[in-house]
């Protein structure tokens, strides 16, 4: 037991962790050239272990601790060392402040990794949306459109589609059986696909489309196109309504009717609904005179929140986001000759941690190095005298 305590409070462990972090970051940065920023981040920094080979489903071995593991050990080491050696003296104040700040920062980073949600809102001029979309995840939306005023939506996340063969939810009068699921795919009409392609669906446009699985994309500006074949089986009677091909490359929802109600199914980017709506009034993209260098992007939107009796215009532009109800809207990009704006929507409950930590650590370092400097100046004076 003593040995374990000694290990976790030792300065050697700190140095080993810091060196490991450097090696990991260096390797991860170089890997970004081939993997893209997101994938390298997943493999190296947001993981407990770095595996080799990374792709293989079968045999693989861990070759290096991942970012989460190093961060966690460092955090334990920090807390343990200070708990053991804590002395309330002025001389140690700087060091203690610095490390307290670092603890807040590491913990905040971990918290952000676990709980922050990033999504996008793409708006053309005049568009109103009360949801943002997660570009990295898709969902299968089953929509009951019988009622003219209100759609009942049951959204099934991609992760469930991937894992479960049969989806049986209380809100639906039928079961959904996932026949095939492709993380990334290319859809082609039969006429183009050649002879040995076979349909995986028998209803809707999917009956004429060949699905070809392809490796996951690594480019920063591309995304996977997941596709699945789903069979609809009524709960109360036997038989099958048919098999549909769903993919967000298909676009429009496909409809069918069952039990006197009309239904639509569509695979689309996962949505986060909000209790308020945002309407794009105007998007501006300024350039410096006589150049293509962008000077500013700005979106003028109207924010309407009936719950809180809010109806106001907001200008979102570079370095000036809109913060509202725990979410922050940033001007992230634009599309199609400036017709559409893309807002990044971030929900991060621990966004204050780095601000607080920064101030504490900076103060700690100042105090600590200030002591050095004063001591050094005294020493210098006494030697020159």
């Amino acid at each position, binding site marked *: 037991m003593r040995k374990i305590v000694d290990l976790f409070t030792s*300065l*050697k462990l*700190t*140095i080993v962790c*810091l*060196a490991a972090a*450097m090696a990991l*970051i*260096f390797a*991860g*940065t*170089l890997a*970004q*050239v081939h993997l*893209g*920023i997101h994938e*390298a*981040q997943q493999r190296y*920094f947001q993981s407990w272990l770095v595996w080799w080979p990374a792709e293989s489903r079968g045999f693989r071995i861990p070759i290096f601790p991942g970012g989460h593991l190093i961060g966690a050990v460092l955090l334990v080491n920090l807390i343990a060392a200070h708990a053991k050696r804590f002395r309330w003296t002025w001389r140690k104040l700087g060091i203690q402040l610095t490390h307290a700040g670092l603890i807040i*920062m590491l913990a905040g*980073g971990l918290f*952000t990794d676990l709980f*922050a949600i*990033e999504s996008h809102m793409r708006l053309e001029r005049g568009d109103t949306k009360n949801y943002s979309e997660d570009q990295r995840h898709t969902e299968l939306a089953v929509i009951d459109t019988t009622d003219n005023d209100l759609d009942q939506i049951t959204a099934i996340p991609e992760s469930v589609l991937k894992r479960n063969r049969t989806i049986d939810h209380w809100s639906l009068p039928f079961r959904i059986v996932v026949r095939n699921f492709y993380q990334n795919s290319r859809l082609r009409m039969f006429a183009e696909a050649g002879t040995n392609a076979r349909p995986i669906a028998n209803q809707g446009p999917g009956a004429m489309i060949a699905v070809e699985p392809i490796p996951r994309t690594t480019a*920063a500006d591309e995304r996977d196109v997941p596709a699945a074949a789903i069979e609809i089986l009524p709960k109360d009677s036997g038989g099958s309504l048919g098999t549909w091909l769903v993919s967000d490359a298909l676009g429009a929802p496909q409809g069918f009717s069952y039990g006197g109600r009309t239904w639509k199914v569509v695979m689309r980017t996962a949505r986060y609904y909000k209790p308020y709506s945002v309407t794009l009034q105007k998007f501006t993209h300024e*350039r*410096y*005179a*006589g*150049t293509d*260098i*962008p*000077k*500013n*992007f700005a979106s003028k939107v109207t924010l309407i929140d009936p719950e809180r009796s809010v109806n106001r215009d907001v200008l979102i532009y*570079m*370095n000036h*986001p809109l913060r509202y109800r725990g979410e922050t809207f*940033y001007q992230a990009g634009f599309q199609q000759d400036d017709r559409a704006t893309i807002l*990044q*929507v*971030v929900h*991060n409950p621990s*966004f204050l941690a*780095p*601000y607080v*930590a*920064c101030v504490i*650590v*900076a103060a700690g*370092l*100042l105090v*600590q*190095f200030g*002591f*050095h400097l004063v*001591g*050094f100046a005294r*020493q*210098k004076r006494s030697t020159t005298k």
Partner: protein
Amino acid sequence: MKRFVPWIVLFVIAGWIAGNWVPPKAAKDDFNLAKFSKLPVLVGGRVKPFDTVARNSLLITHGKQELRLEDGRTLSAIDWLADVLFNAPVADQYPVFLVQNDEVLGLFGWEQSQRKYFGFSEFAPFLKQIEEQGDQADKLEAVQRSAYQSAILNLRNGIVLYQRLKNSVQLEDTQDFAAELKNYAASVPGAARAAAQAQRGENFDKQKLNDVAELIQKYEKLSEMAYILAVPPLDQSGDWHSVGDSLLHSVATGEIHPIVFEYAQIGDAYRAKDYAAFNQHVDLATNFSSKEQPKAVKRTGFEFLFNRLQPFSQSMAIYVLGFLLACASWLGWNRTLNRSAFYLLLLALAIHSFGLFSRMYLQERPPVTNLYSSAIFIGWGAVIVSLILERIYRDGIGAACAGAIGFVTLIIAHHLAGSGDTLEMLQAVLDTNIWLATHVVAITTGYSAMFLAGMLAIIYIVRGVFTRSLKKQTADSLARMTYGVVCFATLFSFVGTVLGGIWADQSWGRFWGWDPKENGAVLIVLWCAIILHARWGGFIRQRGLMIMAIFGNVVTSFSWFGVNMLGVGLHSYGFMQKAFPWLLGFMISQLALITIASMPLENWRSFNATSDTRDEELPATSAA
């Protein structure tokens, strides 16, 4: 007598600089190009003098800021630009374009020879080919291009720039521009009336329209080609226009902008070698601009001065001298040499600071806005800290560091300036002075300190291994300095990195995105933390500290340049492939120094000479 030597050295060097700065006397019967080159124009989104346009354009196409002709004459940038603007057939013959790639030469059926520079007229038969090949290369990312593709793309860009320059103020084949404009001015009102009548479906005088149709076609071409927007707005809030644009607007207003007339007459006088008329119309244009755009004219006048003084190359020369004197002071006659070095370096710092603050004034920005200015700022920060160290210790070490780092960073800056205007406009997200002034300045100050610590360590190693001059006292004070500078670097790198995170949180919604530049910054912070903890834990002593500080140079150079070469991420604003061998060479040299430093102490000349001190017995710096 000895007391005066440092002052004499200082005055001699200051006098030499002042001599460089004396403006050349303008001959009476010659074009007053100096005055012409101060006129304000808008290029690349910024109002600047013709002088800057000339220098940058020549730098892009030719690689230098002056042009040597085959007959041995040397043209200044503005001499060249005046010919390009007003007398294109002559300028077409000048050997401007640098082509060294043998595959590019082979494209035109030329063999590689002694000649590196070619005139525009020589490329005239191949323009279509150059454009096609350049377009193909342009489709690739910079990282993927072969040497041939980079070279042909460079040539294409240079030729496009040159052709646009030629057609900025007038179409290149125009002879009597002023007369043409008078004719245009006379027929515009009639034509405007006729056009309005035609639009309403009334009878109109077709001849009146035909009068200007041909000219309008010419001006449309001129407006399309123009690189320089030379026509200032008539009110403070309006936009700048090219000459062609302005002439097209004249159809609506019925008037020709006065400055367009002036430029036409300036050009005609230039071609006719009529010095008096040229100078008279340059005066008129200057007066007009100072009345309409007083702020811009003041600024362009200052920029002209800044261009002429070349503060960075002047201070570069003095830094070298200061470095040599400081090194010499370790070999003998040390007090005098030491003080001379210190005074010279203060002079160099003053000129360096003048350059830095001038750039801030011209750009109305904090000091660091691109890779070029980061080099200037890193040098500046490191020189200041070094000189403070020198003031405290007076042993020539701070002075040697100041000289070496000042010189090297300015050399680096000089080589980063090849892509044109170093005072370029900032991309939208960077358009915020608060973050540029805090995050960027803190990060680059951190770089400065890291390089300074590395330089101190190099002095320790080189003096210790190769000379007998490293006494125990010197070694101790070097260790103290290095340690202090690493502390300084830790503070600034950490604060800078976190401020960067906060900026990212403010503008993109995430504090940390694992972007390569962010990773580079955090590597520095981690390395500083490792050095300090290893020091506090007693795992390293003097020599270990020095070795780790030298490795800090490797980490910092990777963070400063290396990550930009990866070509990924949001910070890849300064991609440069050419610098890669240099970066690699620097890193290898640092690793070599580390290897040398790891030799057993018996092989060190210094410690061997003083006593048989062993590594374990080397004095540790006073742990704080």
